């Protein structure tokens, strides 16, 4: 197996597991054993491995480091029962905007890789693009609701937010499985 193929496969694997860590939680007491910062570190590793194949991914490196750092600090605060969100509103806003763009662009680049390497008729690129669009819209709606509802979420608003969260999560998990499938198809092609 040549180095490029190796990087491609391991990069896709890191990306898929990265999304797993981002969207699944398993906590013991106040400690989350599947921390989000681990997900971002895996995505960072994916960027390093895939950026040779797709140069645009390199532009996301700094944003990924920022998100990993923020998630790490939040996880650490969470171990002591604190929550960083809301502590410094300007930073929350920056992280929200950066997160929105990062996942949009990452999945766009992953779709470009899928278009190039997927088996004929697999449609993985389309699937990733659709998941990307659903994720960015649902995350935007959630962020807007949180700012408009001013901390009060009850009644139908709670249901709407839950539905949005569920849809976004379903799309992200579909993207995750898409990345696993793409990697699998690369391995089987070999």
């Amino acid at each position, binding site marked *: 197996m040549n180095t490029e193929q190796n990087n491609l496969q391991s990069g896709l694997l890191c990306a898929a597991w990265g999304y797993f860590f981002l969207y699944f939680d398993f906590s013991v007491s106040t400690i989350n054993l599947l921390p989000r910062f681990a997900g971002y570190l895996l995505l960072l590793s994916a960027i390093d491995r895939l950026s040779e194949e797709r140069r645009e991914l390199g*532009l996301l490196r*700094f*944003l990924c480091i*920022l998100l990993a750092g923020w998630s790490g600090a939040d996880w650490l605060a969470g171990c002591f029962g604190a929550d960083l969100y809301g502590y410094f*509103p*300007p930073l929350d*806003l*920056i992280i*929200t*905007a*950066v997160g*929105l*763009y990062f996942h*949009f*662009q990452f999945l*766009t680049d992953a779709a470009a890789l899928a278009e190039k390497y997927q088996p004929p008729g697999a449609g993985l690129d389309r699937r990733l*693009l659709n998941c*990307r*669009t659903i994720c*960015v*819209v649902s*995350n*935007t709606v959630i*962020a*807007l609701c949180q*700012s*408009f509802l*001013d901390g009060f979420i009850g009644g139908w608003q709670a249901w709407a937010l839950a539905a949005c969260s569920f849809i976004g999560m379903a799309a992200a998990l579909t993207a995750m499985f898409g990345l696993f499938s793409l990697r699998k198809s690369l391995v089987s092609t070999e």
Partner: protein
Amino acid sequence: MTDIWSFLLQTLTASGVAALLLVIKALFRDKLSPRWQFAVWGILGAMLLVPAGFRGRYVLLNWPLLVETLKSILTGRFGTLTRVAAPLPLPAISPPRTLWDWLYLVYAGGVILLLTRYAVAYVRLRRLLKRGRTAKAEGLNAVSEKYGLPLCPAVEVEGLSSAFVCGVFRPVLALPAGAEPEEKVLLHELLHLKYRDAAWGLVICFFRCIHWCNPLLWHCANLAGNDLETLCDWRVLERLEGEERRDYGRILLDMTDEKYANLPGTSSMANGGGNIRRRIEAIARFKRYPEGMGLVSVCVALVLICPLLVGARTKTLTGSENPYVRMASARTTWCTTFAGAFDTYAKAVFTDRADYRAMCAPLSDQDELAGLWSLTLTEGESFQGTPAFVKKWGSWLDQEISWKDRVDRSRGYQIFNLIRRENGWEGLLVLYLRIPPKGQTWSGTDRDRWLMTQPLFAQKEEGRWVVHPQGELQAVQGDIRDGGILELPALEYEAQAGDFLLRARCQTAAYVDSYQEEMRFGLSDFDIVFDTVPVPDGNFTGWSYQTLEAEYLGTEEGKKNYQSIGIACKPLWGDEGRSDLTETGAAGEFAEKFGGGGSYSNSNGEQWASRPLDGNWENTIYLTGLEGTDVFPIDPPDRYAVEFYLNEKKVGEFTLLPVTASPGPGPAIAKTE
């Protein structure tokens, strides 16, 4: 803006947003298109147009707290609240008297001076252009036709170093005399014309003048102008291919050392050496953005602009105990509901905290409260007796027992008989005492419980709910039952039935639910404690109380004719018919229970009660009481339908009608000595 403080608040708020945008733009510099990079300045523009501190909200950081603290420190006053009436400087309300008034005058003068300077420069430029000669049209027409762009009059002017478009409503393209303009330069300027970029230049210049003394906003104005030029470069590059793009970059390089016109209403291709170098770097990064980028660009802009426009509201006081900071925090932590205002006042009385009181006090009381807060700090926790704030309202309170020991915090507070008035809400504050007033006794039960009451009125003043006490704190000894507190005012309904006057009393009580579970140390169970931290945006939980009684009006001798008394009662609203009382089988159920005496009620507020009348019975017979939770605001019944029984026989059906217009918040018993 009518004073220096409102300008400070407006400009600081805008500065916070500007700083955020600078960070965001740096993060997305090479990721989102030049169109987005320029459009995102619209967020700052919107914030500059929205009055800061609107409805007690702040943007990103609590700037109102900072400004209020600074104002109090520098002026020594606590009784004003900075408001931004408009995002532009307006004439001051009164002639300048203080240093701060004169500072505002200097600021306003600066705005007028800058606006005048730019206007004069623009007029001079237009006159200069009028003296220019009409430029040759062939090159212009060719570019316009090739790229489908609009045209405007063009003039050649001596001494110009670069081309520019001047004017928004009657634009003119100014060209250097003696030189044949490059096609790409004409393309750049015609694109400025097509998208009316000179108008954006005017807007940027206007905000630059309004915030002339804010270097950060001045810097942002420069950056916005540069982004406008970069956007125009991008539009040019979209229309060029391959080598033409490199040519365009070379043309820009040649302009690095040229002087340029930086006037409102103009747009110039040359905008300074440093800026041109940045634009060339942007050209090197040029790419056509892929499909879908529009969506994420809009989403990122939305998640930025919406929280900024909506703002946030502080709901808790700052932790600092410094009087200036604390009182500023109290003034800027608005009570946004009347329930929140009553709650805050009640807890201010509970804890005797002037800062809590300041949250719901009119601005006219703030100076005095600031003095009381400072007193609290100097006296410290060891202060005994009745602290200054409560003493102001309860002159009868003795000094021997500390306030903390006197009030029973576990019972919380209630606002009795809340009534909506034309311009506010009226109610009676009720607190429970653990220790009776000096010289008084208490059995320790709720039958003769000592209470503290105070009539209150809440109204909105300039957006804040404030509470005005309508009298002193007074001690009242009350009989607390299921049907309410007998000695407190109530809505009364009466009807005469032979020798008896039948009476129903209705009281309502409301409070903001502040009970919390507190884990007992080392154990797995909890105590329920009452949290004395104010909830300025709270909503009421409501309770209603009903009591039924009969008052004997006949002679002492006539009493022996009566061996038992009974009543079946149902509250009615609107057009409800009294026949419902019988249809529900109330009479039948009542008969079952009648013999031994007792009372019964259901969730509809219907009640049945009977009492044996043997021996020496009192003239006033308490029959039954009922309490229940209710959705606030509680609507008292319009009347009561009653079936009256004497000696186990029904003597008639009556309707109890209201006899008091309102429960009246005033205390029932005069203060103790």
